[in-house]
């Protein structure tokens, strides 16, 4: 998966248009990134990519870039930035 595709996937999780998100986007600026949004993200990572995160893991994720890093560590996203 490319970073563009990964950002589009994240946008879909948070019910936003892909062009509204960048790796620097902070969760405070994403209306749907609330407690339900966190669980939706966890469920999506689990069902779509087999990535299972603990509550502690997910609390450390504060930006879109942090989500991309999670996806890279689990091999879902290529290590290159494109």
């Amino acid at each position, binding site marked *: 998966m490319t970073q563009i595709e990964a950002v589009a996937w994240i946008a879909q999780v948070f019910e936003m248009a892909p062009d509204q998100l960048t790796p620097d986007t902070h969760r405070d600026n994403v209306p749907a990134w609330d407690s339900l949004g966190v*669980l939706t993200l*966890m*469920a999506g990572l*689990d*069902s779509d990519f087999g990535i299972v995160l603990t*509550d502690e893991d997910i609390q450390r994720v504060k930006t879109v870039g942090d989500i991309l890093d999670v996806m890279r560590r689990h091999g879902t996203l290529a290590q290159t930035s494109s």
Partner: protein
Amino acid sequence: MRFILLDRIIELEPGKRIVASKTLPAEEELFRDHFPGFPVVPGVLLTEMMAQAAGRCLDAEGGHPGRAMLGKINGASFREWVKPDQDILLHATITHNRQSFATAECFAEVEGKNVCSAGLFFVFVPHERFTAGHQDELLLAYWKRHPERQPKPR
């Protein structure tokens, strides 16, 4: 009006699947308005029935830090009208079951037909938010009929 929208649990594999039943009698007041001269069970109530079935399936397992609550409806389809007095079977299969969340694929069946379906997402609300010692009457009735199937306390 009570808000237990199930009459009975028919089959139960805690944390995995459940089948429950519900019949809404014709004399229920809601049918006066939904709709005048054309009484049908509201889709939102069918969705709530499926959610209550799936939620009890999760709660029966006893392995979560709280009680299952509907957090999101990922899509619901309503294919056939459901009339008063019809016996409705609510089916739920738990598709993801984690400590923080769970998902279920659910459908309602009337006279052998799939009348509606929904993907449901559950969160868990801490037990201390609820009345201490409260036990679900439908689960209690099921365990009373099938004591051998009740999970052992962890």
